[in-house]
């Protein structure tokens, strides 16, 4: 494939951003991603199975995440579950999106929409 820059994938849908963010530390299976997304957003964002796997499929296709062959803890876990992790490209896209959002927040501060960070 020709050069693919992370910017091509921006802006991410909210679901995609949350899912990539949920995978930032470690690989996870579907239900764990769902719970992590709820935790990250303080319960404000909930992703259902359709959105979850629809987004997983899209990010898999775009090469932002991949299935991992290894089970993080084989003893603890269920053989049937499939684990996903960020790819290098996925991490770059996640970072680019986070920077884009940070810039927006900075602009909001500039315009006094938000209070200054302390």
């Amino acid at each position, binding site marked *: 494939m020709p050069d693919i820059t992370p910017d091509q994938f921006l802006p991410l849908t909210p679901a995609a951003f949350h899912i990539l963010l949920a995978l930032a530390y470690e690989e996870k299976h579907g239900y764990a991603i769902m719970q992590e997304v709820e935790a990250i957003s303080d319960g404000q964002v909930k992703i*259902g199975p359709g959105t979850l*796997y629809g987004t997983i499929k899209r990010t898999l296709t775009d090469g932002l995440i991949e299935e991992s062959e290894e089970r993080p803890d084989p003893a603890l876990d269920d053989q049937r579950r499939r684990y996903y992790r960020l790819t290098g490209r996925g991490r770059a896209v996640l970072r680019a999106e986070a920077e884009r959002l940070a810039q927006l927040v900075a602009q909001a501060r500039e315009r006094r929409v938000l209070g200054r960070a302390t």
Partner: protein
Amino acid sequence: MVIRTRDPLPVSLSIQIYRGLIRAYPASFRQEFKAHMLQVFRDDCLGAFGRAAYGGLLAFWLYTIKDFLNSIFSTHALEERLRLEMRRQTMGETLKINTEALNRREFLNFTWLASLGFLLVDLGGVAYLFSMPLFGEGEYGGRFTLGRARDVLPAAGGAPVNVPKGKFWFARTGDDKIVAPYKVCPHLGCLYNWNSAANIFLCPCHYSQYEQDGTYAAGPAPRSLDRFVIRLLDDQGVEVASTDGEGNPLSVPNEDLQVVIDTGSLVRGKPKGQRYTQV
């Protein structure tokens, strides 16, 4: 298998229903993720049911339907895109075009989607019928177009006109004020009449009396006459003025306007002792 016998019945029923819903996703998507989606659904459903029983299950389903509607089209779009890309690649190699007939599974999916489509069309049709006015023009409950104010207004201060079909009287209370009282006495439901000797509406049952504009005057009635909303329309059919929420007599600014009595909107008469605004 995702379903286990030890799940509570509402949960296993929910899983069965969701299994049906999943059929609406594209075949290739289902093949890849169906088992995982069901598993996630079950985990979540058990959680919701465990936390808040049926209330939790209801909230969970509302949210699941929202998720379903949110994701169904985008997954179809994605699969379609992938299929086109793949076809473009293979077409580069061979020019064979795939013209397979429907298989059983695709046919069932089609049927499922079609029944969903018919259901939506039905609901749409019902919603449309319900949104139509219940009563037509000239039917009690609908609107009565009397004609231009110049032609239909009774003489100022003169005898009101009885319109039995619309169950109202039409009175001109001053130079340019009109009111359309409902023909039933608010006391016990008799039909009152206009008494031209005394210039009052007089109820024959218990002698409740009302002034020409429907204001309570005497007798056992608890309030003034109820009245219908009068609407004045210009030649384009645009409403220029209408009876206010208190039921005060409406002024007619211009005798070219069409007078329409809306028997679908009744304003209750004011309690006895309260007057209507007169100019």
